[in-house]
């Protein structure tokens, strides 16, 4: 090997070693900054979890604790609508956040209004709150159910219209739900008097709603919507107009 070749080989080795050092340093910088990002993310996750765990209980702080049932409620915890002497008793278990309850109501609202108005059906509505967990901690199910119970207590003839307004504007599962103001506006649109709407924020019936939710599930209800015609669970199609009406007509004939 000539002198010149040896020099070139040595220069190459030096250059390669320098490149390797540069690479190693770059990798160390990457690893260090990556490590910082990982630590930062872990902290963010823990903080978020702690906040989430605390948020649920904060919402309950100033809730009333006395159990008050709305006027005319049944012992099992249902709000009654319609002629008490009507031949067919239709029990509806719903949660205002439940998307399928919304579909049921939007499909059958007109038929139900008619059947209640002509004295065929007396409705017993159980406004449950078990889907509170799907409204980002705002407890939409409870807020909506409390508003419905307040309407049942002081303006019972507006309850069906109010329920249907809530379902027509139903928020998506997993969203914050409607605000208290939006609920109040829907009640206003359904013809509920303003002095009744003003008492939604008193949360008077929240303990009663929690209790009726427990009672309903303890009695064997497994989900919403569940409908019972004269005490028997209705197993037909809830989401198209017809089957429910037919079943009610048949029950009336018996």
């Amino acid at each position, binding site marked *: 090997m000539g002198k010149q070749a040896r020099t070139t080989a040595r220069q190459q080795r030096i250059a390669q070693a320098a490149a390797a050092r540069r690479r190693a340093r770059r990798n160390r910088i*990457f690893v260090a900054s990556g490590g910082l990002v990982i630590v930062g993310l872990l902290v963010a*996750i823990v903080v978020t979890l702690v906040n989430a765990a605390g948020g*649920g209980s904060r919402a309950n702080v100033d809730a009333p604790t006395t159990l008050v049932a709305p006027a005319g409620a049944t012992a099992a915890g249902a709000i009654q609508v319609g002629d008490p002497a009507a031949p067919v008793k239709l029990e509806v278990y719903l949660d205002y956040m439940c998307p399928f309850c919304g579909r049921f109501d939007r499909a059958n609202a007109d038929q139900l209004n008619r059947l209640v108005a002509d004295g065929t059906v007396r409705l017993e509505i159980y406004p449950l709150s078990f889907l509170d967990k799907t409204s980002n901690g705002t407890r939409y199910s409870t807020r909506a159910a409390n508003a419905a119970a307040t309407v049942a207590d002081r303006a019972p003839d507006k309850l069906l219209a109010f329920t249907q307004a809530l379902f027509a504007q139903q928020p*998506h599962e997993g969203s914050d739900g409607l605000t208290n103001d939006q609920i109040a506006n829907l009640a206003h649109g359904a013809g509920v008097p303003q002095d009744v709407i003003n008492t939604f924020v008193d949360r008077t019936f929240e303990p009663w709603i929690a209790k009726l939710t427990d009672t309903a599930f303890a009695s064997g209800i497994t989900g919403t919507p569940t409908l019972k015609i004269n005490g028997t669970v209705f197993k037909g199609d809830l989401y198209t107009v017809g089957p429910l009406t037919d079943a009610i007509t048949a029950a009336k004939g018996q």
Partner: protein
Amino acid sequence: MAELLTRVRGLRHANAWIYGTMLVSASLSLVASFVLSIDAVRLAADPQTTLSCNINSVISCGTVASSWQASLLGFPNAFLGLVAEPVVITVAVASLGGVRFPRWFMFTAQVVYTIGVLFAYWLFYQSMFHIGALCPWCLLVTVSTTLVFATLTHVNIRDGNLPLPPRIQSALKNAVAADLDAMAVTIWLLVLTLAVVSKYGTTLFG
């Protein structure tokens, strides 16, 4: 200590670890696809019983399964998992047994699985921001698909199976040798976790 670290890092680039991780992740994906497929079939057979909010459904009312996004191609997405994951499992098991697949095979696998991963993340995005309901089995698919993708990419860069320009190939190889890929996957999964807990934290605890 330093020696232990070197041995652990060596192990991470060994076939046993890479294909083992791929096998476990693909199996988890397959299980999740099974559960989701059975749900989808039940939903199709009897919409009445499943179209309700069940007291036992911890997180959502099954609105994910009945959304249009859940059967983008006209059949439940989970069927794709039933078809694709067994292939990944076969590749992982054969490789653990010493089989070496040709470059074109591994490259094709990379392309197809990349499409799969993009699809999984599109679904994750849809369920998070449009459907608004969390689906635990879908999340498992998202995570395990990510892990299969990571191991497949790892092995393909290590073995030079991808038709890349030499400079990019050597940069990627250097990054993999320095375990930057493991770091990237860790960061990615933590970002995913953060996204889920910040959107659904109250649901999980409520």
